[in-house]
């Protein structure tokens, strides 16, 4: 499964890029996070505290246990500060 992964705000800065594409067998968001954490230190650092991370699947807010079946775009970002 090929996913586009987007990063925003300090997650983007820590990981050092705004987007990437990834071929993965991860079945849930949590699996994907584990795969990313294991890749390099910068990912492990960015995902060290998941309480400070939110996720959207195809531009809809989701939970970390959400399945990735059929998903094309995953976005990781800190809690939002609009308004």
């Amino acid at each position, binding site marked *: 499964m090929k996913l586009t992964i*987007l990063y*925003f*705000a*300090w997650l*983007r800065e820590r990981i050092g890029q705004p987007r990437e594409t990834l071929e993965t067998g991860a079945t849930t968001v949590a699996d994907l996070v584990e795969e990313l954490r294991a890749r390099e230190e910068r990912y492990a650092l960015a995902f060290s505290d998941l309480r400070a991370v939110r996720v*959207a699947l195809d*531009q*809809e*807010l989701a939970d970390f246990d959400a399945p990735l079946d059929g998903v094309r775009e995953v*976005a990781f*970002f*800190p*809690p*939002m*500060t*609009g*308004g």
Partner: protein
Amino acid sequence: MRIRVQPEPFDYGAEAGAFAHGAQGAGAVVSFAGIVRDRPGGGLMRLEIEHYPGMTEKALAAMADTARDRWNLTDAMILHRHGAMAPGEAIMMVATAAPHRADAFAAAEFLMDYLKSCAPFWKKEITAEGADWVAATEADEDALSRW
């Protein structure tokens, strides 16, 4: 329902006036603007707002639809900027129009609470010392529970 996401500054008075002027059938219009607040004692050079193009517009439209389902509104507007802005500039505004004021006030507060925590915007404060991402507060997310 009108949703606008733009980097350009806007004239809050002119926007609110045009919204009120176009509010056919409404007996009440409520509008609110968020302004870039300087730090206590000054020092904020600018505020930078990052957003998630695509999701932002969808999230704002969904909020406006929910507001229209829950309250008796004749119209609603959300305008939110991204990019760089200076202290004192308007960041965003919401406006609601309804036959009666209770619906207009409640819907405007609902939209504000949801914009704080559920629209994909992230604020960064730039000072002479550096740049800091603005942290979300628990009070902001807690505010959603009242709806």
